[in-house]
């Protein structure tokens, strides 16, 4: 059971990646076309939500596995623990964004526009839930509880690895905490997704949105797990993680890609079928102005993994499952891009419309539409530009840096975990 030592070259590479990310973030502050620096703030929000979500889902899945008495993942559970410890860095950025609602750093959220709160009926109606105080205080409570549980599960797991025994004493304790976290995680993740992501389109809502966004996080988490494990194996760590474990992760990737599609399509079809104007506008907008993203999303996140991972052996071979993991990870980042950018851009245009003296709700709305129809391609909004890719690389490097330092800070394998033997002999 070797300890992981982070090689200097890896550290350099990840720092270089973070450097690219910071550079691109700074660039996105200056190249934006609007006075609110919406491109910068949406990039920040987009990547923070994406990686914090991956971190949260890793914690969620650890708790699911513990509650279900699962043992197959025990060999590499440190990877998920390391994922879950990233969330604190995401929270710092989310608190900055929450502060921005008070200080006016940004105009990401339409519901935070003082004029709209008074004059816009729908936003006025929702203002008990969509306001800066709920965003800040609710967010702080949820983030605090999540981080508390992440630390708790990690410390219990470390203690179990040090002096656990066959009496399952640590496991029983961990199971109580895990079971306590699951219902909270279920409701709080929906709250967080509504507040952070869905409220960007403040007029619109969908009851399936939280599930759909959560499924996106889950698939991304599995992709990153596969990639980290394959990397670690290529460096000679985790010899005992075999094709059997990779096969199970591949099955999760396959199954949850389909689950994501199921939710994506159910949301789309119900809105398409019911044809209620205030709901369909969300998809009308995306179909008209973001067709590449919209259809590409389905192609890259459903068609591609569905047909490639359908066979037994493509889930087991490191090459094929690794390539799918890379592409689908990017695909779900792209999915979040499509959730976040159009709404924020629309808000920015609408507020710009107000600012130029059109006045009233309709003036802003029409102005926003006029701007969107005039230019079908807005780099960084209708398609991810190089800057967005750079920011993604930066966040990915930061995430991996945190993950590898956390992996290096504890034994790679939880040696005295009562489930370790089951995990080593895992066979599907």
């Amino acid at each position, binding site marked *: 059971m070797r300890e992981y030592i982070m090689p200097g070259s890896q550290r350099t590479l990840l720092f270089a990646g973070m450097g690219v990310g910071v550079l691109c973030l700074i660039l996105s502050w200056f190249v934006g076309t609007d006075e609110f620096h919406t491109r910068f703030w949406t990039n920040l929000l987009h990547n923070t939500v994406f990686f914090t979500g991956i971190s949260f889902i890793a914690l969620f899945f650890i708790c699911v596995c513990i509650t279900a008495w699962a043992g197959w993942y025990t060999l590499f559970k440190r990877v998920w623990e390391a994922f879950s410890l990233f969330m604190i860095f995401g929270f710092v950025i989310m608190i900055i964004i929450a502060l921005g609602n008070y200080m006016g750093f940004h105009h990401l959220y339409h519901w935070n526009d003082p004029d709209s709160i008074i004059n816009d009926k729908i936003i006025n109606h929702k203002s008990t839930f969509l306001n800066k105080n709920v965003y800040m205080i609710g967010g702080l409570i949820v983030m605090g509880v999540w981080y508390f549980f992440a630390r708790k599960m990690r410390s219990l797991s470390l203690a179990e690895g040090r002096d656990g025994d066959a009496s399952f004493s640590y496991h029983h304790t961990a199971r109580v905490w895990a079971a306590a976290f699951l219902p909270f995680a279920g409701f709080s993740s929906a709250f967080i997704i509504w507040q952070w992501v869905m409220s960007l389109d403040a007029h619109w809502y969908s009851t399936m949105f939280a599930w759909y966004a959560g499924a996106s996080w889950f698939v991304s988490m599995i992709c990153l797990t596969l990639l980290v494990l394959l990397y670690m194996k290529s460096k000679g760590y985790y010899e005992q993680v075999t094709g059997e474990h990779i096969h199970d992760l591949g099955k999760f990737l396959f199954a949850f890609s389909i689950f994501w599609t199921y939710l994506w*399509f159910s949301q*789309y*079809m119900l809105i*398409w*079928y019911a*044809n209620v104007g205030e709901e369909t506008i969300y998809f009308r907008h995306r179909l008209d102005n973001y067709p590449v993203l919209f259809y590409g999303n389905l192609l890259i996140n459903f068609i591609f993994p569905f047909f490639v991972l*359908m066979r*037994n052996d493509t889930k087991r071979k490191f090459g094929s499952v690794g390539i799918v993991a890379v592409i689908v990870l990017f695909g779900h980042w792209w999915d979040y891009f499509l959730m976040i950018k159009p709404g924020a851009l629309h808000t920015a245009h609408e507020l710009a419309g107000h600012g130029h003296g059109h006045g009233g709700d309709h003036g802003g709305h029409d102005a926003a539409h006029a701007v969107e129809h005039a230019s079908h391609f807005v780099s960084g909004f209708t398609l991810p530009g190089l800057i967005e890719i750079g920011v993604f690389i930066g966040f990915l490097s930061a995430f991996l840096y945190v993950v590898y330092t956390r992996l290096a800070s504890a034994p790679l394998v939880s040696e005295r975990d009562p489930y370790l033997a089951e995990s080593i002999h895992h*066979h599907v």
Partner: protein
Amino acid sequence: MTIRDKKVIYGLYDDEQDLLKAVKAANKDHLDILDVFSPFPVHGLDPLLGLEESRLHIAGFIYGALGTLTAFLGMTWIFTRDWPIVFGGKPHWSVPAFIPITFETTVLFASIGMVVTFYVICGLGPGVTNPTLDDRLTDDKFAIAFDAGHIDSGAAESFFARTGASEVNTKIL
């Protein structure tokens, strides 16, 4: 696998671990196992017997694809050519509305097709009686069977005695 008019010598084992060890021993001695019987799938038995991976799932994929095409093309024909009706102001060729039914038909075709194929391959079906080697094989016993025409009965008996079989019988199937 169907076995007909064959004299079979078989040993019964009480435990699946004994069975696995016995199959390994038979492989080592190059004894030609006719078949192995078990009340449940024994983990790790397939590779020892050199069984190929089932191709049933390939048939399943073809049935599924057939179901997809049947439903999708069928609905396309019905709603655009045969009997076009306007539903809720939607176009006649409303792909999103077709998807759930296409999905269900895919599952239906794949599942029924695979069950029927499986029954045909195994020679199962209503009214078919298959000879059983020993009734206890459906309960708590495991058996290794040799073709009595291909193995010396003394060699078989010594093999069963050596590998801890609880009982050795012969039967004509």
